[in-house]
């Protein structure tokens, strides 16, 4: 079974509360979830919606066709009517004799109890329509309003009244417990990965759609005794975070494209000063302000070329919410190991979207700081000591007795003092480049290939399109021999698997959420391998598996 619910209305109507309660309840009834948000860059009014897809099977992305629409205003009914599936139901306050319309006087019902909780009446009615009991929903209400105890009883009352106001249309069942028991959004997942990695200092300027990371880690700062500081601008964000890392703390910043542009010089500073740092870029379409609340993968080439001249840098892109936890954790260890900036490329689809995932397994997660052992430092400390692999023992100020720690943004010698001579410059560039070579040989994640031995087509994607691509591959597999190649690490580009794949007699179909086929261009420039087809989308909306399938049929299949 596969059931698609859309909650639509205007900003300020409490859509998020409805989504939170539905999500928790479905999860506890044993359903797999995938939810996405589509909202406008405004605080009140406009048209916003959230889509929750539920299934008894694992889900990888959103789907088309609405089975149940909770239309919190009249406008929503008209906007979403064309997307309704054949047997779909529209729950609204609009009186109509059309078959698909179910009338609910939510405002009237709420008025007698708590006029601000109209949305809870919708939740109650939705459960009745779907055929699910309200016991789990009652628990969700209690948890959701735990900090506002005064309204718990009102909401429980309205949940019940909503339930009683409509008739059952579907027969969804409690599925019992399942192995995958976490529901998490991508922004919280990045934050969780960072906190598990020992993040002590997070500095950021609020920017959609990355603000979720800031809110999540700030919500934990008192409990964990760490510091989250809102900076005056993104230039401050990166420089503050670098100061935190230099001082010996695991530090991070997060932003979206425009903020990343402001951080560019600071990321170059991390490169030449060899300060480990993790930067999350939750992509939205640009340039400049672009589409602030929507999704895209347009920052790839910018991220890998983030600052002037050359320095070791890593860019990785989590595939989904579960992967985002592990990849963020890994980013901290790699930043520390190589003393480099690591950029995590997420996007609004991943950051704002929630998914049912397997419980995070921490057994393999080890915090590796790679700091110098003070006992091994003899004589005057050299922050940029020449070594075989280019990695100099890193100390923080105050760590070494009778020794100082100096770092410099100018080209420098082993002691970090300014130099301008060609010989030292050449040696330092070579030293930094050695780190990149070591990273390539020891720590790159090759992309994951799934599919038949001899495919006719291979769908190639990076980051958050992995899920929709996997679903598209499943649908296409009924008609074609199709494989999928999903990239995590995009810079430096892992090339081994690509070169093996190129040997296969298969057409490569690159699927990307940008207009210029940036990953295709990157692969081409690094390997000479190029796409046979490009399926591109840059309207700010995410791909669904079915959409990729349709576009494959239209644009690719021969």
């Amino acid at each position, binding site marked *: 079974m596969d059931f698609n619910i859309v909650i639509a209305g205007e900003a300020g109507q409490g859509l998020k509360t409805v989504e939170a309660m539905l999500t928790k309840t479905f999860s506890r009834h044993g359903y797999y979830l995938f939810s996405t948000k589509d909202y406008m860059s405004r605080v009140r009014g406009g048209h916003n919606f959230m889509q929750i897809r539920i299934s008894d099977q694992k889900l990888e992305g959103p789907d088309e066709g609405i089975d149940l629409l909770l239309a919190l205003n009249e406008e929503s009914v008209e906007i979403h009517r064309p997307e309704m599936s054949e047997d779909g139901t529209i729950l609204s306050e609009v009186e109509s004799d059309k078959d698909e319309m179910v009338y609910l006087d939510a405002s009237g019902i709420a008025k007698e109890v708590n006029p601000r909780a109209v949305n809870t009446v919708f939740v109650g009615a939705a459960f009745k329509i779907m055929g699910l009991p309200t016991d789990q929903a009652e628990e969700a209400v209690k948890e959701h309003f735990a900090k506002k105890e005064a309204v718990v009883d009102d909401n429980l009352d309205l949940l019940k009244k909503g339930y009683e106001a409509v008739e059952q249309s579907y027969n969804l069942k409690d599925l019992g417990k399942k192995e995958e*028991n*976490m*529901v*998490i959004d991508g922004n*919280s997942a990045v934050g*969780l990965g960072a*906190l*598990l990695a*020992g993040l*002590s*200092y997070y500095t950021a300027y609020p920017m959609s759609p990355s603000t979720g990371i800031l809110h999540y880690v700030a919500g*934990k700062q*008192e409990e*964990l*005794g*760490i*510091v989250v*500081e809102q*900076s*005056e*601008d993104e*230039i*401050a964000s990166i*420089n*503050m*975070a*670098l*100061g*935190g890392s*230099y*001082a*010996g*703390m695991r530090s991070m910043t997060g932003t979206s494209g425009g903020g990343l542009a402001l951080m560019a*010089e*600071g990321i170059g*500073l991390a490169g030449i*000063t060899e300060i480990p740092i993790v930067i999350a870029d939750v992509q939205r379409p640009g340039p400049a302000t672009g589409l602030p609340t929507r999704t895209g993968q347009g920052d790839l080439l910018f991220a890998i070329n983030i600052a002037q001249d050359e320095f070791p840098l890593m860019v990785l892109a989590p595939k989904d919410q579960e992967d985002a936890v592990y990849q963020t954790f890994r980013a901290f260890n790699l930043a520390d190991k190589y003393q480099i900036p690591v950029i995590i490329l997420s996007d609004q689809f991943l950051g704002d979207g929630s998914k049912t995932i397997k*419980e*995070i397994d*921490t057994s393999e*997660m*080890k*915090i590796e700081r790679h700091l110098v052992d003070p006992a091994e430092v003899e004589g005057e400390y050299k922050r940029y000591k020449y070594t075989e692999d280019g990695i100099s023992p890193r100390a*923080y*100020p*105050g760590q*070494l*007795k*009778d*020794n*100082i*720690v*100096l*770092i*410099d*943004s*100018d080209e420098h010698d082993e002691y*970090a*003092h*300014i130099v301008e001579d060609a010989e030292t410059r050449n040696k330092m560039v070579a030293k930094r480049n050695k780190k990149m070579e070591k990273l390539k040989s020891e720590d790159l994640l090759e992309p994951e290939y799934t599919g038949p031995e001899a495919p006719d087509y291979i769908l190639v994607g990076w980051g958050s399109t992995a899920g929709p691509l996997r679903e598209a591959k499943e649908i296409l597999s009924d008609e074609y021999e199709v494989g999928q190649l999903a990239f995590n690490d995009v810079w430096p580009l892992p090339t081994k698997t690509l070169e093996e794949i190129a040997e296969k007699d298969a057409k490569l179909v690159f699927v990307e959420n940008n207009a210029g086929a940036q990953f295709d261009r990157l692969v081409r420039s690094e390997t000479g391998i190029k796409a046979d087809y490009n399926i591109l989308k840059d309207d700010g909306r995410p791909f669904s598996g079915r959409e990729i399938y349709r576009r494959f049929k239209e644009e690719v299949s021969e």
Partner: protein
Amino acid sequence: MVDKNLYQADRETAWCPGCGNFPLRTALADALAEMDLKPEEVTMYTGIGQAAKMPHYIKVNAFNGLHGRSFPPAIGMRVANPEMTVIVESGDGCSYGEGGNHILHNMRRNPDIIHLVHDNQIYGLTKGQASPTSVEELRTPVQTHGVNAEPLNPVRFAVGMKASFVARSTVGDRDHLKEMIREAKKHKGYALIDIFQPCVSFNKINTYQWYSKRVYKLEDHDPTDHAAAMKVAQEFGDEIPIGIIYREEKPTFRDRIPYLKDKALVDRDVQVDDLKHLIDEFK
């Protein structure tokens, strides 16, 4: 007292002979030694410019970062280690021009940081353009007919912002400068010292003589009286006051994060197993 030689404040420099940076370096080394601070107990944050090269000519921990960005990384040290003496040091262009936004917001944060601004009222390293504090009549290869803006009076700005410690000094009076540095160190919170110094190569207006003719030491001034401080801060003409202009005891950046207490966050020893409860919240 720490041996002053530990600071190696006699290293060869890229400064011009007669540069105001030299007496400032000496005063700083003297003050640090007198305050009994070892080089590893001090961290200096600088930007770009001739003044910002200081950490290469005096031995302390240092983060010689980007132009205008000397302040933001210093906050990280304030979070990591409450014991460390933190000095932000740069020129007038770096501090008041490129870094203008950071100085404003760090006055609001009030971190326990000493901010030394080498104010020579000109850009030296880029060879003589106007800085935010340049006088209007200054003519340069860029400001061919004078400066198209009024000069910033950093002291008036800082007192207006109620920055918690605002002082002015001059390299022409090393004992005074040393005393200001010691007072800034004693103060809990953000301490700005705007330091007059001549640029012997490019600024032919604001010379040693120009400064020595104008500066006078404040006497009978109560720096805790904001109205009086505002009045003194306006003075910038034939007479320019030096000394502590304004001082206010107020909560520092760390005070506002009560759960940090005296904890050095750099010592936080955390393992993944200690944090597993974070995962449970998503079930």
